[in-house]
């Protein structure tokens, strides 16, 4: 068991090193001069020279990579070309918002998705199943910006139930409970948009997982033992399907981050997605690389967590 954990951990390190190197190379391969953005249409040769030295863009590539690499390991992602601020300072205040949005929608979509998946699997090929399948297919096939705009038009403009943008009301200065409530009130729309598509995917995957599981011998045997339907589901199927549910959720984290970009843009949610968009327009390389590495690392960690969860669930892995 310890050996397994160690093995997984040693696999994580090269992946992260690889991501750092790959993103560095990708960004440096590209044409374009970051100073152009700073000059924003003006500036002379001397200005360019000055800025280039300031951001060490005139050093050889390998030196830059090594410097960047050792800095990242020390938690220093450099400073933004655009604002001159440490990248970490720009990322940290936004992590909270993105984590809140993504985690809450993963949480909600897991509950809804697994429940719908169970329901559909239990009544496989019957009406409930078909309804779940149809709805989820539709939700997956619809562009997310459509869903988001429809929700905005309906709930923010026509009904006026939920706010259209942001994480808190304009100029909100309350704290504690009032702040939490205000945040939740703002969270509901963007979270729902993300959760609609996620829960659809989770429902479908859970359903397939359980349907396959119900065909398995040990479930047949459990029924042959005289267990009722409910007992079969609760004692055997649910536990067995936990593995596939964990796999599904672990695999969704990257997608949720991706989906969050569009949702954050539409709902003015102050998270990493917005930062990536604005930095990509400005080619603010240090910020982009920082976010890219961070998000990738988050997915790596989730994968690790998924594997470790298997270990808890599955004795075959645990007792290896």
């Amino acid at each position: 068991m310890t050996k397994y954990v160690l093995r997984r951990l040693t696999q994580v390190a090269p992946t992260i090193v690889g991501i750092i190197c790959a993103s560095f190379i990708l960004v440096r391969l590209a044409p374009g001069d970051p100073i152009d953005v700073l000059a924003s249409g003006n500036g002379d040769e001397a200005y360019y020279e000055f800025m280039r030295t300031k951001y060490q863009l005139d050093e050889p590539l390998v030196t830059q990579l090594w410097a960047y690499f050792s800095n990242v390991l020390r938690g220093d992602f450099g400073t933004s070309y655009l604002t001159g601020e440490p990248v970490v300072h720009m990322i940290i205040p936004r992590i909270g918002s993105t984590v809140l949005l993504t985690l809450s929608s993963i949480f909600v979509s897991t509950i809804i998705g697994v429940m719908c998946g169970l329901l559909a699997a239990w009544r496989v090929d019957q009406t409930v199943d078909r309804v779940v399948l149809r709805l989820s297919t539709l939700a997956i096939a619809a562009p997310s910006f459509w869903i988001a705009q429809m929700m905005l038009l309906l709930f923010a403009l026509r009904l006026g139930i939920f706010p259209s943008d942001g994480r808190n009301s304009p100029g909100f200065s309350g704290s504690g409970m009032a702040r939490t409530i205000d945040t939740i009130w703002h969270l509901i729309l963007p979270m729902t948009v993300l959760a609609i598509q996620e829960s659809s995917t989770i429902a479908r995957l859970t359903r397939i997982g359980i349907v396959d599981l119900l065909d398995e011998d040990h479930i047949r045997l459990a029924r042959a033992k005289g267990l009722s339907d409910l007992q079969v589901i609760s004692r055997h199927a649910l536990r067995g399907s936990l593995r596939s549910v964990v796999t599904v959720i672990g695999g969704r984290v990257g997608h949720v981050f991706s989906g969050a970009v569009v949702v954050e843009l539409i709902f003015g949610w102050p998270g990493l997605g917005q930062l990536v968009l604005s930095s990509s327009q400005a080619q603010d390389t240090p910020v982009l690389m920082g976010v890219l590495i961070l998000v990738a690392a988050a997915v790596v960690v989730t994968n690790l967590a998924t594997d470790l969860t298997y270990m808890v669930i599955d004795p075959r892995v645990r007792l290896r």
Partner: protein
Amino acid sequence: MLRRWHLGKSGIVVWICLALFAPWLSPFDPYLVVGDGLSAPSWNHFFGTDLIGRDLFSGVVYGARTSATIVIGTGLIVVFVALTVGLVSGYRGGIIDDLLMRVAEIFQVVPRFFLAIVAIAYFGSGVEKLIIILGLTSWSGLARIVRAETLSIRESAFVEAAQLFGSRTFRTIFREILPNLVPTAITYLTLLLSRVLLLEASLAFIGLSDPDSISWGYLAGSSQAYLRSAWWVAVFPGLAIMMAALSLTSLGDSEGRRE
């Protein structure tokens, strides 16, 4: 199940027809101004006109072509890279396997959309770049499936026997694996490609697609700002994407489930 399969299949057939016969099916050149900007659907312009007065129906018809190109191109890259990496990795094992799987993991953990945004920011947009970006970020899942299949076949008694007789094992594996993979690959690919369609639309929505080649994603994504004042520019291309994505997923559902 039969009906779903037909829906998927007929959707794809319509799509392919639109793509192949676009010049004959569209009443106008989709790149030319043929009317007033933002005129509502009429007999002249079934889907209305866009901002600068181009016929939207022709745009949607021609868009089938670009979208098909993107989907097929991405699919080909994914299949090629995944097969190569999966087969080599599963067959050779050892350090090469470890190395390739680490590389696959790197591509897998960086969210595709993030990477696409960053890559387009640095290299510019364009259909061929989009295909490369989407292709290169999507192969790792299929590669893992291929690798697992290769491993299991390599270890099966059958191949052991074949090795004993000195037959060309790699070819054997190849011949054994491909048929086994087809259902899984179809499910994987159709789901992936429907995502690719939507992803392209999302990229267009945030302003990162190529205006030189009209695709559904471009038409739908770039016109969302006018949803409320000229619904047709946002709705028709969006519907096209939805139908295509639906066709792909239902095709995958049914094809994948047939053993």
